[in-house]
């Protein structure tokens, strides 16, 4: 009997404003909102969302918006307004980190699907189910767990999952302006929008903008092979992150995913060999003594 493949959707997180050419190769787009999102190289406003949403809806594609900052109290009123407007526009969901978002959805009865996207904390099925009971509809899975753990989560939760599959994974978020402070302290010139910090021949992209400082993995996660397996296992979405990748190359990669005619090797070649498998097969360690 022939196995029926689950239709895992491809979600793209673009790094550049013009996304028209990406849309045909994806099932969903994830955008950052100006002043309320982090880890996005460009962010958008409501006008842009309204415009792109009409295009996406016409093509039966989905739009998600990330409000994934940790918010301070004086930002909450604006966040609430944006949540309400996004609900009115009927986007497909908001990806959030801060618990305030889920609280405000409940408190102000804002009718919009939420995606629990607490980046590095989304590591087990029990906590996903916890947030499901408290109002989250989907979950973004941490990039620091193994493929087996991801599949186990899928088995034990009814929430649709988004799994990062391609891109420089985020490693560090700070409200501090680490680069600006360093350059000021030593009176150095040569500002740019992206920097690189290097250690032992690994070069990590680092961004210092109005929201703080953000550092990303040196190697690009390349999970093409795993994407094929995730389809078999019913994973709902895979996320391809365009940050620090040229548009032409990203488009070629997304097309390989879309047409399912790629390979790990083909993608590795497109990315100059700078890829790895992230934590799909590498369990992080920590010392916990056995207790009696």
């Amino acid at each position, binding site marked *: 009997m022939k196995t029926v493949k689950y239709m895992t959707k491809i979600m793209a997180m673009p790094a550049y404003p013009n996304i028209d050419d990406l849309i045909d190769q994806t099932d969903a787009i994830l955008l950052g909102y100006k002043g309320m999102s982090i880890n996005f190289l460009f962010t958008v406003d409501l006008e842009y969302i309204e415009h792109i949403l009409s295009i996406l809806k016409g093509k039966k594609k989905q739009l998600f918006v990330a409000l994934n900052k*940790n*918010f*301070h*109290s*004086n930002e909450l009123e604006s966040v609430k307004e944006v949540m309400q407007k996004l609900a009115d526009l009927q986007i497909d969901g908001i990806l959030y980190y*801060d*618990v*305030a978002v*889920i*609280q*405000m959805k409940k*408190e102000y009865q804002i009718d919009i699907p939420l995606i629990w996207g*607490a980046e*590095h*904390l989304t*590591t*087990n*099925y*029990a*906590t996903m189910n*916890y947030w499901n009971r408290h109002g989250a509809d989907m979950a973004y899975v941490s990039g620091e767990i193994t493929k087996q*753990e991801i599949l186990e989560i899928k088995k*034990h939760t009814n929430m649709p999952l988004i799994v990062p599959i391609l891109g420089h*994974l985020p*490693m*560090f*978020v*700070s*409200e*501090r*302006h680490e*680069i*600006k*402070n*360093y350059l*000021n*302290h*030593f009176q*150095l010139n*040569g*500002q*740019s*929008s*992206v*920097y*690189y*910090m*290097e*250690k032992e021949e*690994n*070069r*990590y992209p680092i961004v210092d903008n109005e929201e703080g400082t953000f550092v990303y993995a040196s190697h690009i996660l390349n999970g093409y092979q795993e994407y094929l397996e995730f389809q078999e296992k019913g994973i709902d979405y895979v996320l391809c992150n365009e940050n620090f990748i040229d548009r032409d190359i990203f488009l070629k990669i997304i097309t390989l995913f879309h047409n399912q005619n790629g390979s790990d090797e083909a993608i590795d070649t497109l990315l100059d060999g700078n890829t790895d498998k992230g934590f799909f097969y590498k369990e*992080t*360690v*920590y*010392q*916990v*003594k056995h*207790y*009696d």
Partner: protein
Amino acid sequence: MIKKPELLAPAGDLERLKWAIEYGADAVYIGGPALGLRANAKNFTFEEIKEGCHYAHERGKRVHVTVNIVLHNKEISLVKDYLIRLEQCGVDTIIVSDPTIIEIAKANTNLEIHLSTQQSTLNIEACRFWEQQGVKRIVLGRETRKEEIKEIIEKTNLEIECFIHGAMCASMSGRCVLSNFLTARDANRGGCSQICRWDFDLYNDQLKHFVGEQPFTFCSKDLSMLKYLPDMIDMGITSFKIEGRMRSIYYIATVLNVYRKVIDDYCNNPESYQYNIAYERILRNCANRDSVPQFFGGENDSTCGYYNGRVEVSNQDFLGVILDYNEKTKYATIEQRNYFKVGDTVEIFGPQLHTITYEVKEILDEKKEFISVVRHPRQIVQMKIEERVYPNNLIRIKKD
């Protein structure tokens, strides 16, 4: 009468728990045998937790246990039994980050639940959510500003805990996995290898290499809220937390001694309270690092960065521990911890004392013979000290 905040101290093991309580902690926080965020610390066995709780409770103090790991699937089934055992040991409170642990604790124990700073809670709405889930206290994110703390205290019934002293993460808590990527050690499960203290080469997008006098680092100065303590007390913050479960007895005793005195002085008589700048020197010397108030007052700028190339030398200020004092002869018996000699000016401090400044005039060894230097680790000596001192008072070198 101003309500005194709880002074909450770290304790890496049973010995340090006892020192912390002796030096004025109202409560201690410790790591148990599993599921905490200092997997490489010594941590407590269940037996030690039981003994620690007994010791603390006899003295009217409380014990909090960190259960602030971010769970992976395989740990879910461990949580229930672990929490029950903690409760059986007499633990008052668990400090939790993962909400699954909150649910399991509520369903199976009567442990008080505090939300860890790992959740980076900064705002009133997030606080309301956790309050509705049965959390009694929130350890706020270290990025929370003064006005935000005030609002949270005014508009919720939560107890609020804030860090007042110690090392700082460069990142927002819970949002750094540098350690995972660079060393495969899981930062959110107790394996943090402190990559933020490493040096890096820094380039711009044109690959111009920035060469400052020191290399690029995320390393931050420590936190010290010494100057702002009266403000924080007036705001009604419930608990003042000192960072550092892996710190030494000397560090814990010194820091507690200073903050205990400041809290007591201000609360007992706020009108006549005066800031004592000498405490800054004491705190700086004991950690051998600079400290600043970080985010409390607003913007965090380059003055908070630590660009010293990590040249700190190990601290040898801690000279000895008083073991005994003979009131008739006025001789104190001392166990040496670092080299000292006749002619040194030292300070003796402890919970019962105002700090005594004292010039070492004579030293007797165990055979009651005069010696001029104390150079052997843990060497037992005697010194004549006119003012009454007490067992477990500590001696440090006096620096200008």
